[in-house]
């Protein structure tokens, strides 16, 4: 694995056993939760194979930090922040119990928990918003940070460029994690990216950039943890390219005829979860028995969440309407006429 610019992989040994167990469990939860969503919703975006990146990026943040996860696999980030699993599954199903009451895309996050939510589908724009959260932290002089992830294909959007430049000029406390799964829908990275390593793009902004093995959750987490520490310390942003592979289709029902089954199989062998498990068993962190118990626990939690979500009513038309188009203007600041029509139907 090349390291164009900064420290690299293989520092998993650095992490204490509690953190390692936490990372493994996070990956297990992500795998289980996202598989369930894929089964329940054929248009869900499978994150299978990329759990090392997601868990490594969002594990261990402070509750006052903000998270802006990529749309592929974000439920883990929300869960780490304390989101209720049945409300998340409800979102994937379009149920009334979702955090956005069915208004936003299913993969949106609970914004009140310091999550940059998905309120639209235009890739790249959330990178700018996440950067703005970091500006807010810098402005207030706090040591809060933002972690923002996005796909490899999204780094070709102008918004990526503008946001990273601004973050560097202002030395904002943000860590950018590229969840590099080698694909943008049907297009392989080699068709749309003229470079092998996205971490080199950090050089355009004078920020550290590094490439890590995204299927090594410990390596990802070590890199992000160090970058978070830099950011907290006022030393500015970092770009981390975490290389992995999208084992599933672009969406759950995508037959993926645009790629070779043998390549897919080869990547299946690099699955980050068995890899972490075998490392941890070898290191004596966990026994096979404990691992089985962790799977059981995670499966039980997800099954319960599914049962609750399924029992919920579908999103209700009473929940759309002109309320909350605008936040209410507090008294004494400005009187306010409000939107013209009070009802949701024109």
């Amino acid at each position, binding site marked *: 694995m090349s390291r164009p610019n900064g420290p690299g992989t293989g520092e998993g040994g650095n992490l204490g056993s509690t953190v390692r167990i936490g990372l493994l469990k996070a990956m297990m939860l992500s795998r289980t939760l996202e598989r369930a969503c894929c089964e329940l919703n054929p248009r869900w975006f499978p994150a299978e194979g990329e759990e090392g990146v997601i868990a490594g990026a969002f594990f261990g943040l402070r509750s006052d930090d903000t998270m802006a996860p990529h749309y592929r696999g974000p439920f883990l980030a929300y869960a780490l922040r304390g989101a209720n699993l049945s409300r998340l599954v409800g979102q994937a199903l379009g149920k009334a119990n979702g955090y956005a009451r069915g208004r936003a895309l299913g993969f949106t996050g609970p914004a009140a928990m310091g999550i940059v939510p998905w309120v639209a589908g235009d890739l790249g724009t959330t990178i700018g918003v996440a950067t703005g959260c970091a500006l807010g932290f810098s402005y207030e002089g706090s040591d809060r940070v933002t972690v923002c992830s996005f796909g490899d294909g999204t780094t070709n959007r102008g918004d990526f460029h503008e946001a990273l430049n601004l973050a560097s000029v202002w030395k904002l406390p943000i860590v950018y994690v590229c969840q590099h799964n080698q694909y943008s829908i049907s297009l392989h990275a080699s068709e749309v*990216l003229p470079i092998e390593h996205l971490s080199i793009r950090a050089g355009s902004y004078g920020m550290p950039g590094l490439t890590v093995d995204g299927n090594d959750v410990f390596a990802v987490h070590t890199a992000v943890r160090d970058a978070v520490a830099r950011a907290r310390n006022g030393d500015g942003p970092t770009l981390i390219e975490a290389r992995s592979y999208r084992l599933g289709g672009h969406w759950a029902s995508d037959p993926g005829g645009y790629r070779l089954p043998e390549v897919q199989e080869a990547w299946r062998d690099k699955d980050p979860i068995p890899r972490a498990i075998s490392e941890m068993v070898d290191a004596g962190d966990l026994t096979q028995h404990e691992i089985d118990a962790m799977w059981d626990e995670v499966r039980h939690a997800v099954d319960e969440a599914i049962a609750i979500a399924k029992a919920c009513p579908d999103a209700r038309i009473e929940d759309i309407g002109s309320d909350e188009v605008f936040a209410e203007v507090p008294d004494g600041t400005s009187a306010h006429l409000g939107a013209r029509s009070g009802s949701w*139907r024109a």
Partner: protein
Amino acid sequence: MARLSFAEALVEGMRHELRTDERVFLMGQDIGKMGGVMGGSRGLIEEFGPRRIRETPISESAMVGAAIGSAMVGKRPIVEISFGEFLPTCMSQIVLQAANLHYMTAGAVDVSMVLRTRIGDGPYRGHPQCYESWFAHVPGLKVLMPSTPTDARNLMIAAIRDPNPVIFFEHMWLYHGVREEVDDVPVAATIGKAAIRRVGRDVTVVATGWMVHKALEAAETLALEGIEVEVVDLVSLAPLDIDTVASSVRRTSRIVVAHEAWKIGGIGAEVTAAIAEACFFDLEAPPVRVGAPHHPLPMAKPLRDAFVPDVDDLLRAIRQAMAS
């Protein structure tokens, strides 16, 4: 006569021009080996290969810039922005470059490009924003929204041949939702003409895209009650064929304008205002507009269904127009 879906008809139109004009090529994301977004370019990569069916990075502004520049040097690019929701990412190229170039150079260059994009609610629940009225506001752009397979094919041909930038809106529900016998001989349709889809003497309903079909459905229902609805499909939002609308209104004395975009500030505002100016003394009742309610577009299916104006909304609006 082949029975074509809307999507197939679109592909037929592009295929015809790709075959007959070497200057024509298509750029977009996932338009090749995946078969196109929602099948919107199915089969083209096999026939024309990657030089003419060009996969692009996620760089909408550069894609439109690339179309403009290549048009300036004599090519006839079709650039596909997968969904209307991504138009805000490339507005400068569209409204400041493409729209201005011919006029601002006093005619020195043409920008013969087509920007095709998918809008509207449909089987695919994502990215359906309908920003078409923004483009109708900006001089220098032609803005089309076909509602039938025949128009899809023949307007696509006309758009490709047109020496001006054409924004081509493809409604997602229509894609696989309507089929029609389409004449085997492709012809270039006339850009800038509205179409009367149903003749009626009592009230004029002006509609776009999927709403045209809903208006025809509403007209069937009302015919049973003896109300004869004339349905005008705008087809072209710019140039706007207000003459066809006005002459219909002069016959019916009543108008309802309907679209899926937000009512406030939609193209219906322009049609209503233009008719109020032009046909004030012909109207016997206030104009009525139908459009989406003024809040962001929700995503869950029941909410989406409630958000998008439907046949009931049209029936209510038409009855209101008939009431006074």
